[in-house]
């Protein structure tokens, strides 16, 4: 994985000094809150309901054991012993003090970590497929390009004061685990006519108030022109994106208002005028970065999972959902579920983080991933190590065998933490999780992504949920709207509202009713999503609103 050289390190060290100075100037009153706010946001520091929240970047969701230990250290030293992994592969701490933030960032910088551009109207953390470098179905490792984009976008002098936030995602596999069509820019690594590597470029996708599945604006961009093309898109957005209304300021609005064709023309015209040699990376730089993402020294593994594993039904349950095929024979990709039954989705204690760091060091070549569905991944596990790993995870409540099942719920922090929220999302998630705790039932239901957002900003990505739940405030009461049929994968789709919403008391019963309709009426082998796409919303509406 990428390791900083002295230049990368210098930049984040100087950033810490800059922020320390800015905090000093704020506390002395030299900077007003209005002036300071965008500066602290560009270091990931929000003011939330209870305290400051700090969002630390985990570039393309990849981190080392050492970095995971640094995150545990922050949780223990500067927070209340835990952190929350987010739907953009970052981590958030909820109880940070402004006066501690410079020291916190100083400590993180020693582990090559920071909060740069994790908030603010700038280019945010680039997210990528959490199975990158481990899955067989990969054209090329998306993290190579994510790292190139990270460098190009960090403290970009022209694009640090955009109309609004800007999110980029990259996938190298046909099965899209990065939800690229729901991003401001999505990149799908592909091959051109001569077999050369490049990208299908998607622009203007997004969640939020006005969800959009982003259109493809360029079928093929040769990889050597990555930065210059992004620069063209960003310049068009920076100049013409709306600044009069924050709810209409994302690039998706510009693409819609101009039309994809006209927008593409503007981008292509700008790109034609850009001096590409000045902006694009040198092949040698790509090679330098690429060398940091070569596969680890895999061993020759034989013997499979072993006898103890074969004889353990609990292990087999976990193996069934939480171990994914690896491109290397004898290896597997492990998903660590951060969704214990009745637990808070995506949260991990400092102790759990330390354990994951140790296990990664021992079993996964020191590498961990964060998924945008708020789980962790150990990407390279020898089959012969799986049982021991599972036992260790189980001892820390990290072995819930539910990856991809209905209790693997994605939920934003919601009204329990977030100042933007209208309703709580975490307790809804907990109650759904409890309701469906029976593992046999979960397997009978199969693949079912439940995604919950506590407000219309959709940080829980509910639009992309097979079952999406949106919390709203109805006359001072928490109320929940249900959408069905969303998908964040390569078959991207926005969920459809099913009908009137449900109260906090009734929402879990409603979800159960929806599941029951599916179980009763599905055809052999039909997933929930396929079922919905076949039958539509009517069968659900009939049952949900029968007695209304």
């Amino acid at each position: 994985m990428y390791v900083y050289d002295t230049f990368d390190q210098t930049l984040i060290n100087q950033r810490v000094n800059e922020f320390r100075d800015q905090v000093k100037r704020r506390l002395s009153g030299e900077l007003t809150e209005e002036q300071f706010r965008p500066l602290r946001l560009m270091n990931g520091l929000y003011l939330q309901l209870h305290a400051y929240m700090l969002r630390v970047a985990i570039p393309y969701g990849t981190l080392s054991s050492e970095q995971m230990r640094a995150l545990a250290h922050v949780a223990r030293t500067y927070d209340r012993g835990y952190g929350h992994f987010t739907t953009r592969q970052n981590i958030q701490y909820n109880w940070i003090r402004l006066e501690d933030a410079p020291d916190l960032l100083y400590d993180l910088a020693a582990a090559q970590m920071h909060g740069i551009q994790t908030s603010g109207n700038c280019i945010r953390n680039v997210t990528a497929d959490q199975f990158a470098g481990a899955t067989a179905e990969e054209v090329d490792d998306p993290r190579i390009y994510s790292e190139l984009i990270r460098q190009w976008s960090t403290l970009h002098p022209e694009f640090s004061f955009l109309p609004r936030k800007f999110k980029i995602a990259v996938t190298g596999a046909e099965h899209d685990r990065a939800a690229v069509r729901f991003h401001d820019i999505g990149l799908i690594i592909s091959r051109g006519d001569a077999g050369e590597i490049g990208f299908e470029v998607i622009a203007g996708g997004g969640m939020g108030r006005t969800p959009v599945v982003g259109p493809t604006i360029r079928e093929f961009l040769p990889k050597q022109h990555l930065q210059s093309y992004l620069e063209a898109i960003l310049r068009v957005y920076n100049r013409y994106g709306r600044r009069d209304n924050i709810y209409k300021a994302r690039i998706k609005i510009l693409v819609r208002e101009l039309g994809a064709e006209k927008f593409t023309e503007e981008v292509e015209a700008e790109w034609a005028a850009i001096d590409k040699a000045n902006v694009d990376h040198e092949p040698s730089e790509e090679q330098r970065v690429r060398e940091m993402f070569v596969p680890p020294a895999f061993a020759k593994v034989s013997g499979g999972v072993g006898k103890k594993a074969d004889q353990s039904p609990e292990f087999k349950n976990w193996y069934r959902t939480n171990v994914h095929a690896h491109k290397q024979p004898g290896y597997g990709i492990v998903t660590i579920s951060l969704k214990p039954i009745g637990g808070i989705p995506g949260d991990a204690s400092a102790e759990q983080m330390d354990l994951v760091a140790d296990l990664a060091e021992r079993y996964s070549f020191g590498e961990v991933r964060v998924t945008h569905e708020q789980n962790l991944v150990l990407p390279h596990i020898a089959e012969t190590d799986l049982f021991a790993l599972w036992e260790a995870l189980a001892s820390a409540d990290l072995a819930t065998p539910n990856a991809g099942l209905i209790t693997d719920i994605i939920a934003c922090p919601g009204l329990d933490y977030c100042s933007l929220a209208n309703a709580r999302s975490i307790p809804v998630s907990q109650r759904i999780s409890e309701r469906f705790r029976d593992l046999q039932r979960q397997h009978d239901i199969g693949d079912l992504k439940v995604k919950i957002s506590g407000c219309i900003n959709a940080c829980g990505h509910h639009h992309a949920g097979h079952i999406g739940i949106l919390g709203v405030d109805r006359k001072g009461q928490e109320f929940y709207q249900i959408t069905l049929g969303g998908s964040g994968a390569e078959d991207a789709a926005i969920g459809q509202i099913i009908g009137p919403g449900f109260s906090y008391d009734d929402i879990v019963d409603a979800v159960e009713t929806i599941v029951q309709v599916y179980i009763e009426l599905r055809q052999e082998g039909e997933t929930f999503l396929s079922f919905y796409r076949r039958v539509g919303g009517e069968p659900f509406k009939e049952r949900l609103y029968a007695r209304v």
Partner: protein
Amino acid sequence: MSQIIIANDLRTGEIVYFAQDRSWTDDLARAKRFDSEEDAVAVVESKEIAAFSNTVVGVEAIAVSGSTAADRPVSFRDVIRATGPTVREDLNRVLKRA
């Protein structure tokens, strides 16, 4: 309906209330009660509060259910601000009774 004034401490981010003695307290029971929203907002927008711009941020007036120290904020959001996340009772502040 009574009102109180709530803010976040600039340095710590913690919830604080404007107290009777015109300082900032983390004890809801000691928050100064205002009889009307107009009265509270007038103070929020006053020079007196502006002088605290390097002590607190996000100053606003919120409704509480009555005028005694035992009364809680009206909106659920403000109750959560006063007591902490509903899903982590171990991290909650217990609202003191007068």
